[in-house]
């Protein structure tokens, strides 16, 4: 008898367990509406289900602007992944990669010297206004670059060195500088575009210049007008990159005036990618304009370059200038010094 009762208890227990499991399954199904859409009021509904179904999770608020009710959207997660992981990687590869290439190039090639030495006579390459515009854009770019890179790399690189309070103060001032220097930078880019567009239209001479590697390897000096193909490339990077930076930057600086939150996420993605590539390209420009080539800095320093430098790097431009002003217009330069 006792044995039979024990069996009966076992069977009843098993049936009770089956009943509980059977009842639990419909409870899960209740999270969906009859049309198979998610019921957001179901108690056990998951965040992912909500996002998949509704694309955006909104709450309730007391602020009149209903945009503030949006709590979460799937694109926000992609954007967060981009600026936390993808952008730092792109930036590191572009900037550190460019620095590595430049260091390696300098160690192998060294400074590109004026092959025939300085002539002691100079010719005006950029007038005062052109140099003013160049330095306006360049100075702003350096500050914008450093303050912008702080947004992506400041936390891992500077925070441990500066500490919380100092890093906060630095980042706040860097952000002010980033916002307000964008205006003179944009003006500078527009002026650069207008000022040098005529000399930066690609032509057949550029094809030959590129074929001969720009004369950067060996002692070759392919002919070039006022701007060679490399300089034209820098010009278009500045004009197109600067425009992309300005447009995407102002979309972020004036949120919701032109675009919604998804548009601003795209603006930040464009701003970030173009910025790190822009910085990498300008590192190359700064290198060749300073330690990479003898006599190059003088073009933007004093505005005058040695005639032999012009002959070797911009022979067609020198011919044009001589045809325009006469062969004896070059200024004697009694105290010629190298650019290094």
């Amino acid at each position, binding site marked *: 008898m006792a044995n039979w009762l024990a069996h009966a208890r076992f069977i009843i227990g098993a049936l009770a367990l089956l009943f509980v499991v059977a009842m639990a399954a419909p409870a899960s199904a209740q999270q969906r509406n009859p049309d198979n859409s998610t019921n957001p009021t179901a108690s056990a509904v998951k965040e992912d289900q909500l996002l998949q179904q509704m694309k955006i999770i909104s709450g309730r608020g007391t*602020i*009149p*602007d*209903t*945009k*503030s009710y949006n709590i979460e959207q799937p694109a926000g997660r992609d954007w967060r992944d981009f600026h936390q992981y993808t952008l730092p990687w792109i930036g590191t590869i572009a900037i550190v990669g460019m620095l590595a290439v430049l260091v390696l190039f300098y160690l192998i090639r060294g400074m590109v010297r004026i092959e025939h030495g300085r002539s002691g006579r100079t010719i005006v390459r950029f007038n*005062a206004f052109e*140099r*003013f*515009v*160049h*330095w*306006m854009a360049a*100075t*702003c770019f350096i500050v914008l670059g450093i303050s912008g890179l702080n947004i992506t790399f400041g936390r891992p690189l500077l925070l441990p060195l500066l500490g919380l309070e100092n890093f906060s103060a630095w980042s706040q001032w860097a952000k*002010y*500088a980033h916002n*307000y*220097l964008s*205006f*003179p930078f944009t*003006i500078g880019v527009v002026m650069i575009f207008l000022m040098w567009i005529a000399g930066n239209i690609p032509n057949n001479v550029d094809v030959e210049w590129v074929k001969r590697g720009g004369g950067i390897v060996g002692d070759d000096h392919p002919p070039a007008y006022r701007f060679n193909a490399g300089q034209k490339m820098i010009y278009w990077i500045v004009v197109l990159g600067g425009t992309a930076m300005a447009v995407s930057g102002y979309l972020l600086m004036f*949120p*919701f005036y032109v675009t919604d939150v998804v548009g601003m996420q795209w603006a930040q993605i464009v701003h970030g990618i173009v910025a790190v590539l822009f910085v990498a390209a300008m590192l190359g420009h700064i290198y060749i304009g300073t330690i990479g080539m003898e006599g190059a800095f003088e073009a933007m*320093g004093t*505005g005058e370059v040695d005639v032999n430098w012009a002959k070797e790097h911009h022979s067609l431009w020198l011919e044009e200038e001589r045809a325009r002003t006469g062969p004896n217009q070059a200024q004697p330069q009694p105290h010629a010094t190298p650019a290094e």
Partner: protein
Amino acid sequence: MKAFLSACVVIVVIAVGAAVVLDKINKPADEAFASPSSVRI
């Protein structure tokens, strides 16, 4: 050098001018949060 220094002066003038103008456009928090289109989040 003169071109560079002139550029620096003009940069500061434009940046400060932009800061002053934008500061005037900027709404105070109590006004912005009472507006249906001015919340910046």
